[in-house]
């Protein structure tokens, strides 16, 4: 068991998510940075999809009730065990009674803590991931609170303290991020000027950036072509008849600030989407801090599939390394 002394800003139990319920408004949830959670799990001998803790910006303070093997990947947020900094992307041993806390992130927004055996909350709809809007999964369907106690499963014993990610399999975070986007959906509703400027301008992550979506600001507005609005579509040119929203889709309410929906997405609504972030780049979004800059790069569906193959190949390398 792990006792939560301080919960941090938004710490939640996440695995790789649940599929098959989006048509009922229940999004996939799961780690926003799927690679980082998988890596942390491999380092402690867990299957890639074991449940861990997603720690956003301000990490939690945790007291371990028993000996454990732990690893932290993702954001560069120093893990301090009884005050002593641990090496990132490396498994380390924790003794019963020791306290783990985190320093501030120097790059990235979400650190993933895996513990050997995994966080053993019950599966709901096939996953241990927390979906807070629906009060579903995770620990009591919500982010962690002070005083919570997290159950831990049985370790596999496959890895030991010191197991470490090779440099080639570590993530480069921070700086200006290039996010690849397949234009489509209602992209044709933008004016020609807006269709261009979306991809040429630099965009800055705003303060409203969470598991549901990331709002970007700091660039000029994107106008939609004026039209007589179809019945049921709402009055603004950025409105459509409420439709489904793809995970990673980009909407621009009133043409002002693009919002990228992430794994806790609202499943639908009445704003035109102008394209979708490719699956291989969704991890990058979840690691962006407020005020960090992004540029969007238009790619084809074929390029998106190629990027996905590279991403999966890297995940495969991880799995083989710790098999």
């Amino acid at each position, binding site marked *: 068991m792990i006792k939560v002394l301080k919960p941090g800003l938004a710490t939640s139990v996440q695995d790789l998510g649940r*599929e*098959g*319920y*989006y*048509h*009922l*408004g*229940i999004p996939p949830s799961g780690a926003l940075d799927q690679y980082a959670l998988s890596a942390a799990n491999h380092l402690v001998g867990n299957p890639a999809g074991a449940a861990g803790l997603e720690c956003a910006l301000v990490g939690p303070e945790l007291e371990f009730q028993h000996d454990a093997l732990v690893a932290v990947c993702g954001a560069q947020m120093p893990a301090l065990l009884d005050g002593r900094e641990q090496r990132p992307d490396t498994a380390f041993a924790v003794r019963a009674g020791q306290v783990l806390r985190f320093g501030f992130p120097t790059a990235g927004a979400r650190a993933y803590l895996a513990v050997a055996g995994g966080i053993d909350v019950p599966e*709901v709809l096939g996953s241990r991931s927390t*979906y807070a*809007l*629906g*009060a*579903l999964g995770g620990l009591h*369907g919500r982010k962690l609170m002070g005083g919570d106690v997290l159950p831990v499963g049985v370790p596999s014993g496959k890895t030991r303290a010191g197991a470490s990610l090779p440099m080639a399999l570590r993530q480069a975070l921070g700086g200006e991020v290039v996010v690849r*986007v*397949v234009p*489509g*959906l209602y992209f044709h509703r933008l004016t020609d000027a807006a269709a261009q400027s979306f991809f040429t301008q630099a965009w800055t992550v705003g303060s409203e950036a969470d598991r549901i979506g990331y709002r970007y600001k700091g660039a000029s507005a994107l106008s939609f072509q004026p039209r007589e609005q*179809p*019945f*049921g*579509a*709402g*009055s603004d040119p950025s409105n*459509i*008849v*409420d*439709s*489904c929203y*793809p*995970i*990673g*889709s980009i909407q621009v309410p009133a043409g002002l600030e693009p919002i990228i929906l992430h794994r806790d997405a*609202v*499943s*639908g*609504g*009445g704003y035109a*989407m102008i*394209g*979708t*972030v*490719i*699956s291989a780049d969704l991890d990058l979004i979840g690691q962006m801090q407020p005020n960090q800059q992004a540029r969007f790069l238009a790619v084809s*569906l074929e390029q*998106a*599939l190629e990027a*996905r193959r590279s991403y*999966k190949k890297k995940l495969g390398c991880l799995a083989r390394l710790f098999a």
Partner: protein
Amino acid sequence: MAEPVASTPIRYSFGADEHLFAEVSDSMSLEAFFKGMAVTRAVERLGLEGVLDVCLANASFQIRFDPDRIAPQALLEAVRGAEAEAVAERSLQTRIIEIPVLYNDPWTHETLMRFRDRHQDPSSTDLEYAARVNGLADVEAFIAAHSGAPWFVSMVGFVAGLPFMFQMVERERQLQVPKYLRPRTDTPKLTLGHGGCFGCIYSVRGAGGYQMFGVTPAPIYDPQQTLAYLKAHMVFFRPGDIVQFKPIDRRTYDQAVADVEEGHFNLRIRPVTFSLDAFLADPVGYPKTLQEVLA
């Protein structure tokens, strides 16, 4: 009905490498919804490997898929095949559900007063405003129109288990109300909302931009699955369900809430067949035959 939705091909667009998005029509109509439902049901029947989720919306749908298991172009071809097969479908086996509603309740009233600065008309309530912009004499007339004809659940989503609903009336009689100027940060659980031409029931407490008309005592989403009608699934509504609202008074509402708390509240649910052609031929009389199924 203006455009021949049935014969207009669906517009497809990929939402990157994991979603196929399909716009049946850019405007809302019962025919557009019906066609989307027929196609998505046909896609489900195909049982395609790699399809993760078939999500139906009001006049569109979306398929979430795993491109490692089904190539995007193969999926598109299969869905186009389902579209060709499904356009002939004109009737639907479904269920009609009576949902009790306390209109003009104290809880949504308290909430709407708290967010009056975000409303088009701060000097009236959401119900008064909705009655006026729809050319109805007063709140009573609006409630009579709202509960006078059944509604189709045309989408489930936004958040877990929230039904969007489209009323079974001719376009001229559709109730239309703009959303709040700026969304509220709070909406009571189980509020009856309305935005544009869509009604909804807020399945959970939270942010919202729809006008608020009342509350139902009937839970429609419950991860604990306490009530009988939530045993099969924590989400009650499915697209294609037909809903009939029944105005209730405060005493009946309080009794229903007590029944919910004791775990023996239930809903009136009956099987029904909906015929699109029968509706189009007699949009006033046909919905009454559906209401009679509940009697």
